[in-house]
């Protein structure tokens, strides 16, 4: 009896103990993407073990493990974000449905998403000096490069981004989270001639032509968000020299977690105008310089800080030949930007972004007659913006963004201004003007992104802004829906309310009206995209309803009773055939406004009916590139002399630009780019308007055919 007992215990132990020790658990389930499609080959396993399986053709997986207790289940799949989940293993079968999110891989150069374009790679630098000098007709300018995409209208010959029947000030510029109110150099009514920031100091840009999320406010039409360079991984020094510019820059890692990027550019256009034998009226040739210093610090595994400093200065002098008088215009502008950005991971999927910035802008304008100082206009304007912004982000299957921003804006004007608006004439007396304005804009916003079955995704948001000067509030609900019909086809719809407050001086009781409401626009966008490998086609239709626009008033100066609309469609096609890559953007637009001094609903300057840009990039042999760009735009409306209000249009605008570049390496780690740009190859004489509507007095483009060449050297 006793023996049997020992034996049985022994048996039990020998046979069952291992079973207890090895008692196995089945782990099974299915791996799919957010649209529910099977992810064949996904690697599902327990962290720290080899126990796992690959998902089969239906996305199903099943494996057995001897592990017990708490473990992390990990799912890995190429092109998707890693999935990690804590599971408890205790012998019972564990069943799981796993859905993976695609890694947003931004392709080469510029990729296009619904209503938005992005440049830059997830990591690293894509807008290299090479790409910059390769964009024809862009004069190494980011705004010009963006203008070759649909939804942006060509109005005159500046860099200004007029987006889908919106005025140039309706597109907001952001750098590392800081709002930039003076984004153009050599400012003009149509924006300016160049963007303020050189592409050299940017890592990537995001551009939206409408329907953007609630994070972005105080903008009626578009958003251009730029990100500066990150921590450099290796030392690079670059030098550039062209017909009108000199530049130097570099990236220097100081320690593993600390580095600086810097650059300096100087541009002096005299040589360029002389070389091209262009007759001009400059008394001072356009001259500008900019300096940039950016310190990046990864202070821990979880966070990084960036300090960004930027300064830009430009000046120009032009002699004016008006029918009744002659004079000189002199202008100079200075921009400064200081920004501190902190980007901290609170956990695996939640992030905190904080930034503190100060932007300064100063401008001096002077119009005098000849040698004798008779000021027709002599105005100094300083703007200062101090901003603090905080953003909390949680990225799970429901992504949330919550944040707020406080902005202080100070404006100062001092000098002589003509007493009759828009009339520059020595016979018109000037008024002395000396005013200072200060206002606060506070905002909060909440944005949510969520995926649903049937390949639907939704982005919804709300935003609230309050301006201290007018004591007015703005409430903006936003919504966008997207439906992936098939692998290559996506349909989307976006709508929302957008508000924009005025510059502080417009609330001045003497010159403006303290009771102005913020301008308002409603966007309705519907879009279809077909995308496969190296090609894409997108068609997007939109309607924008404008209200509370600025309208002149006899006794109140201005009131908020202006209104209007813009409707149209954008078409975009991009395709590459090995060595040849091409893209065509076409926009149709009909915009009408009853604002400013308009006697009714009429075409504003930026009502450009047809807008076409075609870019062709050929690389016949490696490292040799030829890029050609053709731009066409309907002429802008004007009021002919003695004719009806805005009843005619100037001749159509068109221009062909070509850029040839060649990359050569003189020694290890060296890259030298030689480039030659020919602007306006066909010598088209574009006309932008007529003095007093008189067709015998055209306002012409200052450029004939223009050659530009240079070299950029990197080591």
């Amino acid at each position, binding site marked *: 009896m006793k023996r049997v007992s020992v034996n049985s215990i022994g048996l039990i132990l020998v046979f069952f103990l291992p079973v207890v020790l090895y008692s196995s658990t089945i782990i099974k389930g299915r791996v799919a993407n957010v649209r529910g499609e099977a992810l064949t080959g996904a*690697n599902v396993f327990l*962290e720290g073990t080899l126990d796992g399986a690959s998902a089969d053709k239906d996305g199903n997986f099943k494996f057995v493990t001897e592990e017990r207790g708490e473990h992390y289940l990990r799912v890995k799949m190429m092109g998707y974000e890693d999935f990690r989940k804590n599971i408890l293993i205790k012998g019972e079968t564990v069943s799981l449905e796993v859905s993976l999110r695609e890694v947003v891989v931004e392709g080469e150069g510029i990729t296009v998403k619904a209503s938005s374009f992005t440049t830059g790679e997830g990591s690293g630098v894509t807008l290299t000096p090479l*790409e910059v000098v390769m964009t024809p007709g862009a004069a190494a300018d980011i705004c010009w490069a963006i203008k070759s995409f649909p939804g942006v209208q060509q109005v005159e010959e500046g860099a200004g981004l007029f987006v889908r029947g919106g005025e140039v000030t309706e597109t907001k510029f952001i750098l590392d989270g800081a709002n930039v109110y003076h984004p153009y150099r050599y400012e003009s009514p149509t924006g300016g001639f160049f963007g303020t920031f050189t592409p050299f100091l940017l890592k990537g840009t995001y551009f939206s032509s409408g329907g953007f999320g609630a994070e972005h406010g105080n903008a009626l039409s578009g958003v251009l968000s730029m990100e500066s360079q990150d921590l450099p991984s290796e030392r690079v020094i670059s030098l550039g020299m062209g017909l009108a510019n000199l530049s130097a820059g570099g990236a220097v890692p100081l320690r593993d977690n600390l580095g600086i990027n810097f650059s300096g550019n100087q541009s002096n256009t005299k040589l360029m105008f002389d070389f091209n034998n262009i007759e001009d009226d400059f008394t001072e040739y356009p001259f500008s310089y900019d300096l940039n210093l950016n310190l990046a610090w990864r202070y821990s595994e979880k966070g990084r800080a960036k300090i960004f400093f930027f300064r830009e200065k430009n000046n120009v002098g032009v002699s004016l030949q008006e029918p009744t008088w002659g004079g000189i215009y002199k202008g100079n502008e200075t921009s400064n930007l200081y920004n501190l950005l902190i980007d901290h991971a609170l956990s695996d999927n939640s992030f905190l972004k904080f930034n503190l910035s100060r932007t300064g802008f100063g401008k001096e304008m002077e119009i005098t007659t000849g040698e004798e100082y008779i000021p027709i206009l002599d105005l100094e304007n300083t703007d200062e913006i101090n901003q603090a912004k905080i953003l909390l982000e949680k990225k799970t299957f429901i992504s949330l963004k919550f944040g707020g921003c406080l902005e202080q804006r100070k404006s100062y004007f001092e000098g002589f201004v003509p007493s009759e608006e828009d009339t520059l004439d020595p016979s018109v007396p000037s008024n002395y003007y000396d005013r200072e304005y200060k206002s606060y804009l506070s905002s909060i916003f909440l944005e949510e992104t969520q995926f649903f079955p049937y390949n639907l995704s939704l982005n919804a948001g709300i935003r609230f802004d309050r301006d201290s000067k007018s004591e007015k509030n703005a409430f903006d609900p936003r919504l966008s829906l997207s439906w992936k019909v098939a692998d290559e086809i996506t349909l989307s719809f976006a709508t929302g309310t957008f508000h924009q407050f005025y510059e502080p001086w417009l609330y001045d009781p003497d010159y403006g009206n303290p009771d102005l409401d913020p301008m308002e626009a409603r966007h309705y966008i519907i879009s279809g995209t077909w995308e496969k490998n190296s090609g894409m086609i997108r068609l997007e239709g939109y309607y924008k309803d404008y209200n509370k626009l600025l309208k002149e008033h006899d006794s109140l100066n201005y009131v908020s009773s202006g209104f209007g609309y813009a409707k149209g469609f954008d078409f975009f096609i991009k395709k590459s055939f090995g060595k040849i890559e091409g893209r065509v953007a076409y926009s149709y637009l009909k915009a009408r406004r009853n604002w400013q001094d308009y006697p009714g609903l009429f075409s504003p300057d930026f009502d450009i009916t047809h807008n076409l840009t075609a870019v062709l990039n050929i690389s016949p042999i490696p490292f040799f590139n030829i890029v050609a760009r053709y731009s066409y735009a309907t002429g802008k409306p004007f009021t002919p002399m003695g004719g009806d209000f805005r009843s005619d249009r100037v001749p159509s605008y068109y221009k062909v630009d070509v850029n040839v570049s060649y990359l050569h390496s003189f020694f290890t780690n060296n890259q030298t780019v030689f480039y030659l740009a020919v602007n306006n190859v066909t010598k088209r004489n574009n006309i932008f308007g007529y003095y007093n509507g008189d067709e015998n007095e055209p306002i012409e483009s200052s450029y004939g055919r223009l050659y530009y060449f240079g070299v950029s050297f990197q080591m």
Partner: protein
Amino acid sequence: MKRTLLVLLITLISIGIYAEEKATVDSHILTIKTEQQEALNKADVEKFKEISPKLERLSTFGDKEWLVNYYLALNNYRISTILYEDKEMSEKYIESAKEAIQKSIEGKDDFADSHALFSSILGIELGFKPQLGMINGMKIGKEIEKAKKLEPENPRVYLIDGNGKLYTPAMFGGGVDKAIGLLEKAAELFKKEENRGIYPDWGKDEVYVFLGNAYKEKKEDSTAIKFYKKALEVNPDYGWAKYLLEELDTLGSYSQ
């Protein structure tokens, strides 16, 4: 007696279990190295594809993660080169190889083999995306220089450099003759290299195939054949060398 036996049994079982758990990263790496060589011999994509998930799992063991990531990068790099004609897939694998090698270097920055492999991966990526010329071109050179500085006697560094030079235009410092010089140096260094255990020691056979390719490029088929045969001497199961030999044979230039 029985009880003692029982205790002994239990102890043995426990040790067995313990030993199994402790069959650490090192021994897995040794196994995987053999598997990779076998897959390479047959240019067997499916076999390579089975190895990648194992390495991914192994990278979560919390030990020698950088080395596991090196082998993961190597594995995906192999898949990418075998699948080179299937542009889309090949590009996907080279991207994951890049990701893995970057992780490896992040974990250990002074390992020459990682920098050399990174350089080669960037070269393949450049083939898919010529517009990266500016960025990758520079990094390719820097990584290989760094590898040479770290381990001037590592044959794989010269193997990769030499093979890279074979496909680099002369104006960028490439060319057949430069490639041959580097590959010959690699071959010399390989003669001195011993089994490196868990560390990479592949390439002894490959170097002769690359040399053969270089001579084929120079239209010196008989020398090419000599090197392909040499590769087979080093590794009689080397499928690629056999294939290349047969190819030259059928072209009718097999003159012996």
